[in-house]
């Protein structure tokens, strides 16, 4: 199970890569493993406003549909269109090619409320 040090995390098992005022978001290795084979990703719309902790995408796997939450507030700046045809990339490379969307932050301070790698690892390992 991987927990890249440079990333931030949420209790809902999303990862967040901060690059200036933009955040890239995906689901963690733990999440993709728990969900099983991912067959569909409902992406948010570019330009949509999202609020922290609100549902903004959905993932279907093994006949299960799961919400993806916005880790931070902002505007959807980009989505990973390749997931439309190859959603299984989320299983194969959750921290890389399996990214889901980018958010332009409206409140950079929200990043301080995210978990670091060690805190997220502890959360997962306490389960």
């Amino acid at each position, binding site marked *: 199970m991987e927990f890249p040090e440079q990333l931030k995390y949420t209790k*809902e098992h999303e990862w967040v890569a901060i690059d200036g005022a933009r955040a890239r978001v995906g689901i963690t290795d733990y999440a993709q*493993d*728990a*969900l*099983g*084979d991912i*067959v*569909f990703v*409902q992406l948010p719309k570019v330009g949509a406003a999202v609020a922290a902790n609100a*549902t903004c995408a*959905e993932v*279907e*796997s*093994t*006949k*299960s*549909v*799961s*919400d993806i939450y916005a880790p931070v507030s902002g505007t959807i700046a980009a989505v990973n269109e390749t997931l439309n045809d190859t959603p299984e990339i989320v299983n194969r490379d959750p921290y890389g090619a399996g990214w889901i969307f980018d958010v332009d932050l409206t409140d950079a301070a929200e990043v301080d409320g995210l978990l670091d790698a060690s805190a997220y690892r502890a959360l997962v390992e*306490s*389960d």
Partner: protein
Amino acid sequence: MPTAVGVTWRLIDDVGCGPADHMQRDLAMLDDVLAGAPPALRVYTWSVPTLSLGKFQSIDEIDNDACERLGVALARRPTGGAALLHGGDLTYSVAMPLPEDGHTGVQEIYDWLARALIAGLARLGVDSAVARHDGPGGPVCFAGQQGADLRVGDRKVCGSAQVRRQGAVLQHGSILLRRLAIDECDLVMTPYDKQALRAATITLDELGAPCEASVVADAIVTGFMTALGVAFTPTTLVAAKDSRDALM
């Protein structure tokens, strides 16, 4: 949010109720659990033959003209998976928090609830098991098997699906009681071999088991009690709330 173990669940017996706002009622159960209500098991039947579609299944896969001609209603499930014809089945639904012991994976929940379903079917003399995992199938639920499903021998007897929100899960599934005069092959655009679908599935009726919906429902409820240690308080679901989902 309460745990699913060691608490009394709500039991909602909707067998014989209809016509169906069944998907809204299932979602209302999940909303109730998210709001702090105890877990719930609901059992129900469909008064009108209804083809339910997976949440993200394309409507283009469905032959709308055939559905209209054959008097089959359509419903959009909040859960995943493919098209499933209701009417000859007993449907169960469970809404509960994800376990606090870390065993929260999709397959882990299927496996846990399968213990109850298998125990319930065993009370009817049916020896079922968790189905093999074939991966994603085509547009007809019962044409394929995954770890979400139950089989008797190699034939599918129960298909299930889940939706998860904020630490809670809704799982519902269809137990085949008896054949209808039509099946999914009559209702989807993709040509399917009716004999192949029939060979891939089996009903309680064909197994010579009791197939009266109320009898099967009682057995399933008892299965939850014996296999999972669940205690129930019979209750009725308040009129289904408007769901956050836009259902068909």
